Structure formats: structure tokens, C-alpha cells
């Protein structure tokens, strides 16, 4: 089992039974997870979730221009989305803008994209950052692109439910992270050492469950083939699937 397979399986469980999962650009592992959820839904005959892979016209239904993703979310029609951050802090705040003082930033990230909106209106936002370090997981972000929690009077139908890293899975509730499980080969001590923010944890932290044989077979079969049309390099590298054989 490869790390990517474990992470995709973890994310698929977080997705749960929903109607519509949207995945941003350059997110092959969340895309794998979403396609896995869809493949399972097909097997179970429920015909969902609907999966939108942004940046691929073939894998989105949008016909109303760039605003449709955001309008769709505002209508409550996107159930799961993925966000990341140059920094993520213990309050669930994410920083996609800069490090250092706003007047003279030392480091500039690309920018907030739609996060300052989608974080508020997508019920299940899954934070995903493979680099789990004190550089990325900080006590307090330098710039809040989008806040992890809001005052009770602020309109908010969505927000973070979890943070998936290369080392572990945190759940998020009431403005704090809880360590839910540590991935095979990693330890609680290691997670503490490399996490810049304070978090809750049960006395005994379980190990993240490995994907079942059925799940792996599904992922390496139908899912990998579908993925190859959008992420050919990733599909070849992780699943050994050649894009050309399947992409039309």
C-alpha cells in the first residue's frame, strides 16, 4: 500500500454519503478519494456522489462561467470541498496569502482563491496538507485567508471538519483540532513534535485503518483509470496506469 492510497481512503471516509463533492485544481489525492466515493456509490446503486473536478471541462458540468462553482456552493449544492494553506493554525484558520508583516511580507503565497467564501458555505471542508511540520501547522497564521470558526451570529453553513496530513488525521470541532488517528508508521510523539499548534487527543490514539483489499482493488482499477484522464502523471506514478490507454 502506498501513502497516497491510505490518504485517499481516509478522505473517502470523511466524504461520507453526500450528493456532490467538488475538488479544486492540482489535487490528485482528494480527486482519487472523490472518484473512489463515486465508484462505491455506483456499486451500491445509489448513484452518488456527483463529482466535479475543477479545471477539467470533461469532469465538471459548469456552463454558467466561473461564478457557477460559487453560486452552486451558495445554493447549498456543494457538500464537500478541499482546502489547504501555506499555514494552518490550531483554530482552523488558513493562510494562502503571506508570511511576515502585511506591509512588507517576507513570503508571498498565490492568494486566497475562493477560500474566504467556500470555507463558510460548504458543509464539509476537508483540509489537506501533506507537509506536516511546524512551518505549516502553526499556533497562529500570519494572515487569515479564511477563519476556521465564526461568531454565532455570522452566517455560516460550512467549515472545516478535518485536517489530513502525511502523518495523521485530525478532526475539527468547536474551534479546535482533535487527533483522531495516526497513520501506520507514525507516532503520537512525532505528531506532537511536528505540530505547531495545541490539539486535543484521546488517551489512546488509534492507528489509521488501512484500506481494505476491496477498496484497494477499486482504487487501482476503475478509479485509477478515471483519474488518468485528469492526472496522467499521478495515475502512472501511483497506480501504474498509462493515460494514453484510457484517455480519449
Amino acid at each position, binding site marked *: 500500500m502506498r501513502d497516497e492510497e491510505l490518504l485517499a481512503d481516509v478522505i473517502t471516509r470523511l466524504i461520507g454519503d453526500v450528493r456532490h463533492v467538488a475538488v479544486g485544481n*492540482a489535487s490528485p489525492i482528494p480527486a482519487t478519494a472523490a472518484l473512489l466515493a463515486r465508484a462505491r456509490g455506483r456499486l451500491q446503486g445509489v448513484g452518488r456522489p456527483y463529482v466535479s473536478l475543477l479545471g477539467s471541462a470533461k469532469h465538471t458540468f459548469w456552463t454558467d*462561467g466561473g461564478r457557477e462553482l*460559487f453560486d452552486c456552493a451558495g445554493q447549498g449544492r456543494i457538500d464537500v470541498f478541499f482546502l489547504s494553506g501555506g499555514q494552518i493554525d490550531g483554530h482552523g484558520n488558513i493562510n494562502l*496569502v503571506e508570511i511576515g508583516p502585511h506591509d512588507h511580507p517576507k513570503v*508571498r503565497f*498565490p492568494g*486566497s482563491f475562493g477560500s474566504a*467564501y467556500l470555507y463558510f458555505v460548504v458543509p464539509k471542508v476537508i483540509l489537506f496538507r501533506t507537509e506536516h511540520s511546524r512551518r505549516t501547522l502553526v499556533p497562529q497564521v500570519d494572515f487569515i*485567508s479564511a477563519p476556521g470558526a465564526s461568531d454565532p451570529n*455570522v452566517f455560516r453553513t460550512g467549515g472545516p471538519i478535518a485536517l489530513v496530513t502525511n502523518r495523521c488525521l485530525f478532526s475539527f470541532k468547536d474551534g479546535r483540532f482533535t487527533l483522531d488517528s495516526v497513520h501506520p508508521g507514525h507516532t503520537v510523539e512525532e505528531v506532537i513534535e511536528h505540530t505547531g499548534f495545541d490539539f486535543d487527543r484521546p488517551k489512546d490514539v488509534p492507528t489509521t485503518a488501512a484500506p481494505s483489499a476491496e477498496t484497494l482493488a477499486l482504487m487501482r482499477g476503475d478509479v485509477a483509470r478515471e483519474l488518468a484522464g485528469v492526472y496522467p502523471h499521478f495515475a502512472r506514478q501511483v497506480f501504474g496506469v498509462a493515460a494514453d490507454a484510457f484517455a480519449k
Partner: protein
Amino acid sequence: MIETTLEEALAPIADGCMLVVPREVAGVPMAATRALIRRGVKNLHLIALPTSSLQADILIGAGCVATLETSAVSLGELGPAPRFNAAITGGTIVMKDATCPALHAALQAAEKGVPFMPLRGLIGSDVLKYRDDWKVIDSPFGNDDPIVLLPALKPDVALLHAPMADRFGNVWIGRQRELVTMAHAATRTIATVEKIVDNDLLADPLTAAGTLPGFYVETVAVAERGAWPLPLPDHYAADAEHLALYAKMAATAEGFTDYLDRYVHEKRAA
């Protein structure tokens, strides 16, 4: 006649112009961008709807931009946008950070002739904190319900690249409907296209459905492969090799100057 040369078509983009341009999937007018750099346009207020990649980076690197208003600039898989990042850390441009739906909504406000549009989210974000042109009100339809109002964004010029236009200035934009909103919001619209077709795009309901009417279009110029090295979806893919070369050369100021010399000023771009 609406159809003209690329250089003539771009004449309305004067120094200091508030210029709106689209994201990669909607057709980025790169040939026009290179022509603007050759002409030496200055002090643009560039609005990238809602994000940008090569286009913003090269305009910033070439010294054409005074103010940038967008939600993100990067070269995607090739990493950070080097000239954008250098300009921000060097403090040489004014950055107005936004979030994607805010730019869409602010242009829709101009499209509808209203002074503002409301938008959910943003409360508690530093994106809002640094935008003193955005306001928060207590929604009159709620009960202690703060909501952000975005002032209408009315660019001087919208610049876009599309697959085709006809001789009446009608431009086929397909699913990329933000191009329609851009044109409605902007005072003037300039389009470059892959080709001019002989039929009237509005005469057939099938093509009309994806057409920006010539009524809104000031000038049209043919620019074959006008999005190069970026993609024109459904028509051609990105030139990955050239983009990698750009990322490498633009990593330093000197390398970027070499890039401009080779691919912009010398017109060796095609």
C-alpha cells in the same frame, strides 16, 4: 469596421487603464498581452477574474502594472509566479487581495447598474480587513446578521481571447460566460480571436447561445494561437515546455529580461 489589426485593436488600453482579463480556462489574450508590453503600457490597474498565471506575472515583470486586483496568481504545477512574488515582497505594486466570488459579484454589480452586491463569507477574514473599499452592514432582512457589500467594479476595458468572431463583431465565447459579464461591466471590450467566420453567429440559435453580441464589442483582431503558451480549452493545450522555460527564466530579474527580449520584443513567440 470592428475588425482591425492587433495593435490598433488595443489602442483603447491607455496608460492607467483599469483592465479586466480572464482566467486560463476562459481564454487568456497572451498575444495581446505581448503587444501591450511591446507598446510599453504603464500603470495598469489589472483585474484578473478571478485569478491569473503567466499573464499577470509577465505584465508585472515588464513594469506595466501599478495595481493588481485578484484572488491568486501562480504558475500552477510550475510553482509560484516569480515576478508577482518579487513585486509583492519588493513592494513595487499595490496588491488588492480578493476572493474569487467577490470579483465575480463586483462585476455583476456593474453589469446590473447597481452600486454594490452582497456576498456571504469573508467576515473574520483578513482579505476583508485589508479592503477598505468593502463594507459590512447588518442585513435588513436578518437579525444581527452582518454581511459584506462589494462596490461595483466597472473596468475601462475588458480584454479577452475567444475561438471565433463574425464580421458583425459577435464573439463566440461558449460556456465561458464570465466573458459576457466582463463585457457588460466594462466600458469597452476588445477581443482577439483565432479566426473570423463568414456566418452571422447570432443568426443560428445554436451558436447564438454561446455568443457575446457585437453590440458590446469595440474592436476585434485576429490572433492565431492568441492564448499561446497558455491553452485555449477545446482548441489547443498549454505549451508545457515553454511554460517551464518561462518559470525557469523568470526566476531572476535578469532571466526575465532575457525572456522578454527573446519572446516578446523579438516576436519569436510563435
